[in-house]
């Protein structure tokens, strides 16, 4: 019998939701075949089976959120009996059945002789595990029982009025929640509501309440974005620096490359990705994460690229951007953006980024201050390229193509000067694009 566990699919993944089982109990499954879909805080992903056999038992139902490495199913032979402890989720009688003993024999028996000691050890270990499970179970029931010490009437009223019994204290015998307790809560609720209504009434004399067009529940990707962004905005002290870069040289460089290949393959984004990666090589403190009072600086420079999709925003990753050629970066970018738009990104495509680039240039936005994509420590905002008059070295006015860059960094990890130096370095590369090859 093989265990199927909730896989840990990313550095920060702690739990996953079983979105959908692609096989049902009793189905034959081949190694490498898709077994189920799991939703992490980033994407939905198909998980492949590591074993060939029959899906004997599913422990995690669809919709359940399970910590990583927890057993979610078992795969075994067609005629293999499901051990009792699996059927009852690891809770089983203490006796070890004869078949179980036989199994140990067979297992160990390949080395001809089997030692009695091993069997005893095996049984003892099992007993211990089962006991642990039982105790846990008992504890859970105890807690549950304690929770619901309420009279039938109180329970009925609580249900009718959607009151969570675990959140109120009882004044009946032995702390039992009785009718009076429910009525008290209802009364308190009413008072609060009245107060609120009073305030609203008061203010509604002067204010006009806008009419609602529709209400959208916060779910799925939108919810994830919402949670991650509030976490970032509230926890990370951002500083944002802006710099304008003359990209005359880059423009020429790009045109030259386009001509060489004979198609307009490259986007300015590709050059910026590469230049950013090289700048991070120079200032690795921005390629880091703050975790448990420690700044962890990464060796790998994995650039995440914010891509807008129908229902939100997703950040596919170009790993080791500093070591890829411009062409490789372009290929990968095109690939990822297409996958993202088609909703076909796999978990490996969206995890492990160490720094993010977000670009609103195509919408003619010139400046914006981005929010860091946690657990990263920096993000680069790329604005529109516009032709602008600038004063050149010879004190003459010239019209130049200018790109506006905004760098947000985690002020707990680094300071404005580092950011400024990083931007300067980035500018230098973009102005001398030969360095990108």
């Amino acid at each position, binding site marked *: 019998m093989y265990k199927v566990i909730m896989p840990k699919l990313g550095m920060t993944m702690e739990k996953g939701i079983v979105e959908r089982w692609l096989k049902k109990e009793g189905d034959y499954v081949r190694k490498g075949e898709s077994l189920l879909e799991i939703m992490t805080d980033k994407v939905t992903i198909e998980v492949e089976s590591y074993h060939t056999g029959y899906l004997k038992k599913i422990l995690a139902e669809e919709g359940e959120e399970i910590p990583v490495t927890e057993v979610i199913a078992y795969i075994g032979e067609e005629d293999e009996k499901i051990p009792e402890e699996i059927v009852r989720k690891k809770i089983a009688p203490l006796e070890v059945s004869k078949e179980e003993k036989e199994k140990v024999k067979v297992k160990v028996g390949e080395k001809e002789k089997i030692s009695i000691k091993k069997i005893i050890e095996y049984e003892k270990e099992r007993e211990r595990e089962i006991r642990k499970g039982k105790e846990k179970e008992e504890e859970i029931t105890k807690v549950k029982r304690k929770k619901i010490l309420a*009279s*039938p*009437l109180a329970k*009925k009223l609580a249900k009718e009025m959607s009151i969570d019994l675990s959140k109120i204290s009882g004044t009946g*015998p032995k702390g039992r929640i*009785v009718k009076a307790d429910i009525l008290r809560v209802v009364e308190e609720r009413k008072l609060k509501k009245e107060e609120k209504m009073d305030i609203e009434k008061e203010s509604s004399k002067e204010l006009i309440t806008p009419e609602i067009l529709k209400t959208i529940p916060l779910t799925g990707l939108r919810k994830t974005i919402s949670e991650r962004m509030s976490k970032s905005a509230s926890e990370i002290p951002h500083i944002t620096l802006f710099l304008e870069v003359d990209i005359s040289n880059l423009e020429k460089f790009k045109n030259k490359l386009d001509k060489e290949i004979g198609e307009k393959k490259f986007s300015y984004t590709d050059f910026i990705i590469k230049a950013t990666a090289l700048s991070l090589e120079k200032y690795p403190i921005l390629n880091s994460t703050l975790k448990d009072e420690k700044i962890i600086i990464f060796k790998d420079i994995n650039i995440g690229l914010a891509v807008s999709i129908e229902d939100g925003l997703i950040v596919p990753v170009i790993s080791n951007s500093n070591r890829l050629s411009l062409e490789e970066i372009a290929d990968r970018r095109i690939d990822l953006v297409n996958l993202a738009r088609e909703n076909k990104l796999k978990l490996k495509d969206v995890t492990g980024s160490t720094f993010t680039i977000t670009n609103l240039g195509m919408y003619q936005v010139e400046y914006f201050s981005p929010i860091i994509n946690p657990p990263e420590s920096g993000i680069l905002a790329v604005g529109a390229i516009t032709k602008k008059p600038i004063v050149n070295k010879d004190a003459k006015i010239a019209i130049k193509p200018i790109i506006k860059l905004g760098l947000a960094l985690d002020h707990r990890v680094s300071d404005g000067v580092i950011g400024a130096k990083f931007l300067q370095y980035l500018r230098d590369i973009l102005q001398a694009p030969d360095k990108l090859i």
Partner: protein
Amino acid sequence: MRKITYAEAIREALRQEMKRDENIFLIGEDIGIYGGAFGVTYGLINEFGEERVRDTPISELAIVGTSLGAAITGMRPIAEIMFMDFTTLAMEQIVNQAAKMKYMFGGKAKIPMVIRTPAGSGTGAAAQHSQSLEAWFTHVPGLKVVMPSTPYDAKGLLISSIRDDNPIIFIEHKLLYKISGEVPEEEYEIPLGVADIKREGEDLTIIATSIMVQRAISASKELKKEGISVEILDPRTLKPYDKKTIIESIKKTGKVIIVHEACKTSGFGAEIAAMISESESFDYLDAPIRRLGGLDIPIPYNRNLEKHAVPQIEDIINATKELIYG
């Protein structure tokens, strides 16, 4: 309205019914000249003669057996068993014959008989003359069990019992004979199987039978001084009993005490408590169901001990407060 005692109310019902229907006769030990052990039938022999008020030898088996024979051949006998304890001697006739006959004869036999018998302690009559055995009879299909707690109920229920074509165990109480209450002079029936709310209340329902109804009323007066409003419900008939009224009362108050004099273990309160748990009123319970009953001992002869063996007013007050205050 005119007030008479519980014993007088029963006597009046007997007299009026005997006048109405000449097939009715009384049979029992010392019910003639002596007027019965508690004087209930006193004077009736003068009015109706020895034919219709028949004294018997000391054999309860013979009293019930004779009554049963008379009933199935067209008479309407009313037997008196001097103490409920002595019904044990007539059990074969009551349980195996009277209760079964209508069924076993395919409905062809009518058994219009009433067995009147006083139950209960409180007279210093000791273990063999003080029992409350109503639960036994409620367990036998074919019998109806009636247990009045007031003079008014005693008259109305007895008239209904006499007019009913089934064997009826009519359980009186020795201590109730002397209490008085308003009773109409004319004849009236109280339907069997209908409970009565003796006092309306909001905070708790006391379901009481027989003498315990009177004690619950006394207790309620005390409790009222503390602002506790109890509802007192008397089933009046234990078989069949009025579930609906019980359920409705509990839906109103959310708390219930069942009190009877009979031993708590397997007493009729157990039936009521179980019915409540099974019914829709379960969801209205705001406290555990509480039963008060006699101790599991033979009733002691010693008067102080005798008192302590069965629920008293004080016990009802205390139990109520426990449920109200927690």
